[in-house]
């Protein structure tokens, strides 16, 4: 039985991962009101991109030296797929009824899974992923793995960089304008197609970071890992207020902590002995989502993308 601080820490770790993935859902939704259901697979391909790079590096290379190269590999794969999906699948459907891009996204999601399943060498089962040395580290009662440290540091750095970019850069300002009023943004001289591509690219990059972090944390990746993670991250984005980047991260953390505590403690409640543990945590995640949405239909920080600058 883990202690409460341990459960909270576990929740924050997994929550950071949800938050990183949720950024992609929320940025794209905030700007084009599209739910990119293939985003979970963009996360998955990022993990495989990182692994492909690792596999081709000399054995003598240390994992620390390999890490930036793996991140670059995963990011290239994820960003290319995200931007490619926008150009080839979503852009032609802009202005079409909402259902058309949604169905396309679901189709793309299945296609990406199958591509990895069939073409990545021996990907039919889980693939072993390298791990970071060191750890576990003990902080009070809490055990922390090296992979968790990487995950949290990556989430903090990415989030801070994104916030600074949105608040202070010219493109970030253009992004806010496009999210608030795309036609008028064009009248200012903003090339909104470029802004949309950038939103997909940032989402893809964040997904790749999450994919790499996930591999390092669990030591294994699988072609269907994007389904659950994507669903959870989408839940986190809605929980935080879809369209709001800070909401996405907050939603991820809240969801992670709630899940972790629910699976540990719900079964201690008399009469609910059967409702705890791993199997039920997804149920509790959605119960939380529903409760929050009943009280705040727009989500915790519900506004539109990048609007809190």
């Amino acid at each position, binding site marked *: 039985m883990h202690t409460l601080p341990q459960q909270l820490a576990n929740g924050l770790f997994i929550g950071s991962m949800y938050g990183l993935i949720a950024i992609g859902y929320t940025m794209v939704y905030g700007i084009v009101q599209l739910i990119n259901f293939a985003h979970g697979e963009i996360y998955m391909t990022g993990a495989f991109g990182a692994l492909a790079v690792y596999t081709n590096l000399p054995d003598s290379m240390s994992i620390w030296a390999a890490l930036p190269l793996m991140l670059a590999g995963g990011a290239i794969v994820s960003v290319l797929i995200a931007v490619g999906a926008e150009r080839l699948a979503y852009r032609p459907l802009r202005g079409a009824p909402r259902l058309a891009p949604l169905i396309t996204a679901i189709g793309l999601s299945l296609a990406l899974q199958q591509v990895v399943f069939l073409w990545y060498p021996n990907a039919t089962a889980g693939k072993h992923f390298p791990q970071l040395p060191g750890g576990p580290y003990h902080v009070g009662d809490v055990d922390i793995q090296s992979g968790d440290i990487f995950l949290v540091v990556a989430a903090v750095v990415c989030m801070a960089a994104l916030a600074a970019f949105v608040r202070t850069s*010219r493109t970030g300002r253009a992004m806010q304008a496009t999210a608030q009023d795309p*036609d008028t943004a064009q009248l200012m001289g903003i090339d909104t197609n470029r802004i949309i591509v950038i939103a997909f690219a940032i989402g893809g990059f964040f997904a790749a970071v999450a994919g790499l972090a996930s591999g390092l944390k669990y030591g294994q990746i699988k072609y269907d890992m994007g389904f659950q993670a994507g669903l959870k991250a989408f839940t986190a984005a809605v929980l935080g207020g879809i369209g709001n980047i800070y909401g996405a991260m907050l939603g991820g953390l809240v969801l992670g902590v709630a899940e972790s505590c629910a699976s540990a403690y719900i079964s201690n409640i008399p009469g609910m002995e059967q409702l705890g543990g791993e199997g039920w945590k997804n149920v509790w995640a959605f119960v939380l989502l529903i409760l929050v949405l009943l009280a705040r239909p727009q989500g915790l920080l519900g*506004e539109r993308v990048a609007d809190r600058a």
Partner: protein
Amino acid sequence: MTALLEVENLRVSYGKIEAVKGISFSVEAGQVVTLIGTNGAGKTTTLRTLSGLLKPTGGKIVFNGKPLTRVPPHKVVALGLAHSPEGRHIFPRLTIEQNLQLGAYLRKDSGGIGKDIDRAYELFPILGERRKQAAGTLSGGEQQMLAMGRALMCQPKLLMLDEPSMGLSPIMMQKIMATIVELKAQGTTILLVEQNAQAALSLADQAHVMEVGAIKLSGTGQDLLHDEGVRKTYLGED
């Protein structure tokens, strides 16, 4: 001399419905030209097509010697055609100053941008007082000032204003109209769409009356102001 803006036989449709049915007019540099007409006449559709937000189904638009019919909106602005849209459309969750800066999105001269922001605050002092406030908190009239100030920030060769007096109190309306007179005196070329025909006609060099997608009558502002049909239909006289 060729005009700054030439519109020839312009046609625009929404699906099967033709909203603009072959209109022609021109705007000379330094002029104020107005389009008046009842609801649904096609005035907004015309401006949105000039800006590139809508694609025409036929006809020609030539601005400053360049054809505009296939140019996307962000490039139209770059050519010097600014558009203050109907309903103001300020960016509600950005500050007033950030809205003005976005008006100058394509400019690189930060010194000049700063000067023009100051000029906008001179033109509309209330905007200067509220510069750090979210634009969505402004009153309708103040938002209209911001929309006009923002459109001027790109140093346009032609400023298009779509119903700047819409929904404003009489005092606010007078203030906006006075500003248009001031801009005109400074030499700004303006294409003005208005339902307030009296005000628009009295300051326009050229005026066109639109009805169901076509131009029914054209003349100088003064001509139309004294035209019996116009007085009956648009100035509420009988």
